[in-house]
């Protein structure tokens, strides 16, 4: 049960690539400030779910409601204006721009001022890198820059795709704290993650996907004992 009225509600979402059904009737709900884990084996459609919700791809069927309003037909920037933002499994910063310019780009629409940009850089430990070209950052730094770019746009719903992958234990710990702080400020988080230990720091509620479909929804602890979930993970 969601603690309050859902911010995002996704119903029977489907997406196919050619003959391949990447999403097959996915349904989920997310309330403000809530953190939902989205897990599943490789190729189960997690990234596709984020891509469709955020507008990178259009859905073949199903509905995406934000505050009860259908947003399925809107282009990316309109969804960003409404408060949907995301990071990428492979970070996509503006590589030729500096770290500071990366955030300035996103600040134009959201009208975040210098002080806010500065705070965001501090928050994500990017302040010392402000003048560096994004291309010169390592992958952990690029992930934080991706997240900073999303935060500057003032999201209400943040979709993060495997932020934990490739981080060392210390970085993982910090990232978990960062995401928890973001959620506490009222942002709804959909967290796609393979690292269940990392996810456990953020939330107890997960949706498990397989072949584009939800096969489990509930607490992480229960999921870990669920026959079907175990089969899918061991089989995949």
């Amino acid at each position, binding site marked *: 049960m969601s603690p309050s009225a859902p911010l995002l509600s996704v119903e029977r979402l489907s997406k196919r690539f050619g003959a391949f059904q990447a999403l097959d009737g996915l349904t989920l709900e997310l309330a403000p400030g809530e953190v939902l884990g989205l897990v599943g084996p490789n190729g189960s459609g997690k990234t596709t779910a984020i891509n469709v919700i955020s507008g990178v791809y259009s859905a073949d069927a199903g509905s995406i409601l934000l505050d009860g309003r259908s947003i399925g037909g809107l282009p990316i*920037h309109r969804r*960003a204006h409404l408060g949907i933002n995301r990071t990428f499994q492979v970070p*996509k910063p*503006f590589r*030729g*721009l500096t770290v500071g310019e990366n955030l300035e*780009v996103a600040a134009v*629409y959201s009208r975040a001022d210098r002080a806010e940009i500065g705070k965001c850089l501090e928050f994500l430990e990017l302040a010392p890198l402000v003048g560096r070209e994004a291309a010169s950052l390592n992958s952990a730094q690029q992930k934080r820059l*991706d997240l900073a770019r999303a935060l500057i746009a003032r999201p209400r719903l943040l979709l993060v795709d495997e932020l934990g992958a490739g981080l060392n234990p210390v970085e993982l710990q910090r990232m978990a704290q960062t995401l928890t702080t973001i959620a506490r400020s009222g942002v709804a988080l959909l967290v796609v993650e393979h690292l269940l230990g990392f996810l456990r720091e953020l939330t107890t509620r997960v949706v498990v996907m397989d072949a584009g479909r939800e096969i489990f929804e509930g607490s992480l602890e229960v999921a870990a004992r669920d026959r079907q979930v175990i089969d899918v993970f061991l089989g995949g």
Partner: protein
Amino acid sequence: MPRGGWYSVGVVLLFALLPFVYGNHALLFNMMMYLVLAQGINVLFGFTGYLPFGYVGFFGAGAYGASLAILLVHLPPVPALFVGAAVSVLVALLLAPLLRLSGAYFAIASLAASEVVYYIVSNPHLVSLTQGPYGISLAQVYNSGASYATMVVVLAMALAAVVYLRNSHMGLALQAIREEPISAGFAGINVVRERTRAWLLSAALAGLAGGAYAWHVSVFYPKSVFDLNISVFAIVFTLFGGVATLVGPIVGTLLLYGLYNWIGISQPEYFQLVFGIVIVLLVLFLPNGLVSLLRRAKIHVP
């Protein structure tokens, strides 16, 4: 003064004053024309990543738009120039769907589109309107000095446009779009609208240059204002200097156009050879243009 402002003032003053001490006005005029076209290419390619091989189509459309406004509507040349630019912008609006194509497809489609404009303009059935293949004569308004001065103003406008892009949110947004269009969308940027604006601005600059050229030469044929070499030269000059900067296309145009002109006069038989070699060297060793050398030396380039 915004970044690059003083460079622009310097270049404009240079071309405003040089005619008093240097006799080859045709060379100066053509150089200005290529400076404008190179900056127009820069606006589109440097700031959005679209390489328009058919860029000359806008130049030709501007030349014809201005000329027909003079011949048919009897406008004075300067207002006619703006009609020419408006015609180029109109053509660009019609072609805006091409921006959905990517990379080589866009380059080739824009080339085809400029050929279509050329065939329409030079069509013998339209002789009563465009003079078809017989070309245009603006003998009654010919004024070498005034048209030269006009090109100086057009040059100032082109440089001002790029200085603006180098210093504005719009320029930053366009660079973001070039780097990573999807992330730009998540930064709240309307990618399609910004790209289209750059495309129209770029077309307007070519249209103004085309109109000023038409007035300056006052007799020309469709072939000469839709000559693909004009696109190729402008693109090579821009890339040679370095895109997405103000200075790159200026340096590229001054050096290469100067070089080509010198070879074309003194050793015309080697022209194609040198032209080809420059392109090969550019692609192999300086894909980001001359300004990348300065950048490597940590010198800031406006």
